[in-house]
């Protein structure tokens, strides 16, 4: 059956559960956008047909995406392996093109205007292309993914669009590229790297939370304790003591130079402020070199934690059972900014309460686990790496997006997959899912 994939019965072998979940998610998304946009004073059925509201636009996007999905299912799996490198190149080219053609939307110059008033965000599409090229690279027979060299090549493939995103002031999108760590880890990335990354993250957070002097003392004490406790081993091997001292020095350098450098030169002022406000501190924007060069855009309109505060109020006011469909006052009163895109989760939380949010998260968890299952049943490495990339991207989006609405993560502008309003985003996730479904339908094939 796998030998005739593109014949009449395109649905053969596709995973029905994922398709159902996909449509359920899109439907929930449209419902949420409808809740946000709903205005009792205007006739919603009229505006639905007129296509002027976000939810009606989203319906048209969804229909379009449905066709794209069918189109992908009708394609030959080999196309994806064949086009992986080229598409990545095109994607990078498009991202570079934004610096020339880019249209400024919400302070980031990452959009290319296309016909009909729609705009395309190449960084979104680049996620797909990066997933494909990563899969292609790892699945190459000559790649030995236990080697550091392979790791570095893969890392560079991922880092390139991420860096370009940062240059476009799209920190959120850049962060998403770290989602490929899942796929890399699955294919043999040593856990030590993850542990180091995690330690680094903890160190950064500690730097923010504690006074540098106190943190330095704590680190010194820890280092001293380790040396004392393992003093006998050190006598046998001088190098280990150097290792401990080296780690101590790196930590110290991180606190003293790297973290301030990141906050002052890599992050923009508003991002640093958001991160600081998460832990209840204030960030002094005058230190920020990046925003000085970008000559601060629109600052100081509302207190920086306004979004999160209102979003928490909206979700919290839902209570256990929720306030009911279309009855959320936070949503109706438009208290949550960006509510139909990045903060779409709040309308769900307010209207349907804990029951709603828990059910929603359950669906998503099932969706992710289902894709992991699909990944593990692939014969070809290409499909598996790609599947894990999809899992990583989805998971990262969901986790970061929901965490930021409930105050667990600083606000970075990334959408909730399949739910948030936006054609680019919906199209990206649709393509991600449907390529996976196409590959899965051909799971008996070995793709290279």
């Amino acid at each position, binding site marked *: 059956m796998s030998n005739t994939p593109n014949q009449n019965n395109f649905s053969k072998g596709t995973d029905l559960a994922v398709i159902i979940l996909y449509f359920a998610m899109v439907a929930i998304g449209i419902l949420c956008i409808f809740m946000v946009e709903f205005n*009792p*004073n205007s006739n919603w059925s009229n505006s639905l047909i007129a296509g002027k509201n976000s939810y009606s636009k989203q319906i048209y996007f969804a229909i379009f995406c449905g066709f794209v999905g069918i189109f992908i299912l009708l394609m030959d799996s080999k196309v994806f392996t064949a086009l992986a490198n080229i598409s990545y190149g095109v994607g990078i080219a498009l991202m570079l093109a934004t610096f020339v053609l880019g249209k400024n939307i919400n302070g980031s110059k990452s959009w290319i205007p296309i016909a009909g008033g729609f705009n395309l965000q190449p960084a979104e599409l680049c996620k797909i292309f990066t997933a494909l090229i990563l899969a292609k690279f790892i699945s190459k027979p000559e790649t030995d993914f236990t080697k550091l060299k392979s790791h570095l090549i893969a890392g560079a493939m991922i880092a390139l669009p991420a860096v370009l995103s940062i240059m476009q002031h799209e920190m959120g999108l850049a962060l998403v590229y770290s989602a490929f760590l*899942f796929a890399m*880890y*699955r*294919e*043999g990335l040593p856990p030590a790297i993850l542990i180091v990354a995690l330690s680094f993250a903890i160190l950064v957070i500690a730097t923010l939370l504690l006074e540098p002097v106190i943190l330095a003392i704590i680190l010194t004490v820890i280092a001293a304790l380790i040396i004392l406790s393992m003093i006998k081993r050190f006598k046998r091997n001088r190098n280990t003591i150097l290792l401990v001292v080296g780690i101590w020095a790196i930590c110290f350098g991180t606190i003293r130079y790297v973290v301030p450098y990141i906050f002052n030169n890599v992050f923009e002022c508003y991002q640093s402020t958001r991160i600081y406000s998460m832990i209840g501190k204030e960030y002094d924007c005058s230190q920020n070199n990046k925003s000085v060069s970008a000559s601060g855009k629109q600052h100081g309109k509302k207190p920086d934690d306004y979004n999160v505060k*209102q979003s*928490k*109020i*909206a*979700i*919290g*006011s*839902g*209570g*256990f059972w929720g306030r009911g469909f279309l*009855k959320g*006052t*936070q949503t*109706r*009163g*438009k*208290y949550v900014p960006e509510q139909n895109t990045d903060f779409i989760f709040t309308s769900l*939380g*307010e209207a349907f*309460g*804990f029951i709603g*949010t*828990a059910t929603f*998260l359950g669906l*998503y*968890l099932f969706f*992710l*686990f289902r894709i*992991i299952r699909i*990944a*593990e049943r*692939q*014969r*070809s*490495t290409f499909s*598996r790496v790609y599947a*894990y990339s999809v*899992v990583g991207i989805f*998971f990262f989006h969901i*986790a970061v997006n*929901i*965490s930021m609405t*409930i*105050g*667990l993560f600083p606000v970075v502008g990334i959408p909730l997959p399949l739910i948030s309003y936006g054609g680019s985003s919906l199209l990206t996730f649709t393509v991600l899912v449907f390529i996976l479904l196409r590959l899965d339908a051909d799971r008996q094939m070995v793709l290279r």
Partner: protein
Amino acid sequence: MALYNSNRGGIIQIIIGFVFVIIIGQLISLQIFSNKYKLAADNNAIFRKIIYPDRGIIYDRKKRALLENTISYDLVVIPNEAKGVDTAAMCSILKISKEEFNKRMIEVIVKNSRVKAGIFEPFLSPELYAQITENLYRFPGFSLSERSIRSYPYNTAAHVLGYVAEVDVNFLQKHEDDGYEMGDYAGMTGLEKQYENVLMGQRGVKRYLRDNKGKIQGAFEKGQFDTLAVAGRNLFTSMDVEVQQLAEKLLQHKIGSAVVINPKTGGVIAMASSPGYNPNLLTGNQRRRTIGSLLTDTARPIYNRAIKGQYPPGSTFKPMGALIALDEGLIAPSFGYNCFGLYSACGDPRKCEHHNAGHAANLQLALANSCNSYFLQVFRMAIDNPKYHNAKQGYLKWKEYVNSFGLGRKLGIDLPSENKASIPDTAQYNKDFGNPKYWNSCYMLTLGIGQDRMTATPLQLANAMALIANEGYYYTPHFVDSIEDEDEDDKAILSKFRTKQEVTKISSDIFKIIKEGMHDVTVYGTAAGIKVPGHEYCAKTGTAQNPHGKNHSLFVCFAPKDNPRVAVAVVVENAGFGATWAGPIGGLLMEKYLNDTLTSESKIKSDYLAGVDLMPQSIKDWYIRNNKTERLAPIEYNNDELSDVWDMEMVSENAPLPSKKVDTIKKTIDSGANKTNMPLPATPAPVIKKDSAALLNKKKKNPTTKNVKHTKSK
């Protein structure tokens, strides 16, 4: 190679699951374990608008509205939303400085917080209202809020109606459960306060959804949590606007009070206290300007003398003294006392107004002539009643009687802060005179003629007249006869006004004797000069000594003699003889109520009386010192002249020395003819009849030629 690292899929699942558990944990804490977000959301989005109902209207007995509601506008501001206000324009419209603007803003924030609307400028005048509505777009956060305020079409009965004012912190603490809020208005005095619950109605609350810009989105939950405002209910009183207006008119430029009661129901027909004020001065933005000067006025125009003023009743008490003695069987109506102008049974002689023999030959004569000696004697007999062994017991019995007449205790009228005045306790005399064993009736002798420590409010005196008129019972004086849509609570309140108060066991025969005596007062006695056209009436004059200067002029009466329909008490402070000032006022009030109109003669008399200035000199001086000359009477009178007048009046009253009853009547009618028209016996009657205005002008240049000085009893 495919299966290599396959356990890592599980680890990835664990990581994903772990992150989801953290998220779920946070959701549990947000959505299940904290209520504050729900509150915060409601604070954000639900705008509560209080709908004020119209206050109830107060009507008089002929359904004329004593007060009405009119619409006024307040300029309100929500400080949080007042951004980008054209401050300069606002200041120039309101004619305030920038500093004042900021000060008011801070006041609003302090009072009502930043997000609630607070009053920036209350009671806009029509011009301001027009200017501000035109420019409202320049003042974001500001809006106009409609409010109904009181107005008083008859400009009358300020003391009775009371006023409404913004509630203060004290009020809010006292009425914590009644749902008042800062900025609300409530009745502060008078009927407005007494019947606040009835008049205020029920406030409604409308809830609106508003968006993040404060714009109203529409009703919250389709208005299912809204409550409707229920208009306050109306009060129907026993008052009569015209009588009330007349009473106030007659008392102007005088200090004093008049109370008119319907003895059949206890309903108060009129209650005036002078000096008063125009109730319209205490509504709207007038209030700010007026209240201060009213409160600091030395004549205390806000003070309701009718229920709070404590006056020695003087001779007006005599009928009651007689009632006690008759009921106790101490005297018979034929009891006489041989008075020659002095009462010296207690050593230090007390003077009586009369010298002629036989003026107190029986009770009726004694009442008619208001013989001090007679009633001092009667009082002593009551105190030293052998039935009660000693003076103290006798006094207690006497006090019981007096209290039962409604003196020395609160009557329970439906006005706040009624004063009970004073019928002294034995304790007070014990303190003064030591052990009751040692004191006797001579110690408090003048209680018998309504002096000493006895005081009564005009209301109590009027009520005592109602009691005599009804021959032994009264209805608790009250204003409100009925309440619109009376419910059980209202009935409970009003039931005490609808029950007969039978407080004495004195038989009606005894009352009839007293009534006859009081009738004689008006026929040939001290009030013979005062007539009520078409009606026989009963009265008693009083001239009460007091520590504050000249004697108070008192008059109590009821009419008609048979089947009385009105009882009146009038007090004019420091005016002199009862029959001269209080008497004619009482007479006119009765006439007005009984006949519903005044004869043209009475009209002239009332205009004259209204013009007479009897303000004590000390108060006039105060007005002049404090630049409040507008409060002075337009025509100044020479008080010395007037004092001559009243001294003479007494003389003239003393003049007829009746040996026979018929004789006296004739004579008093003669002299009464003069007095009916004007209280100056020296001025010939025709002058007034010609032109009362001429009289008013003449009055000043009309020195009394007679200079008979009368030495008063101590």
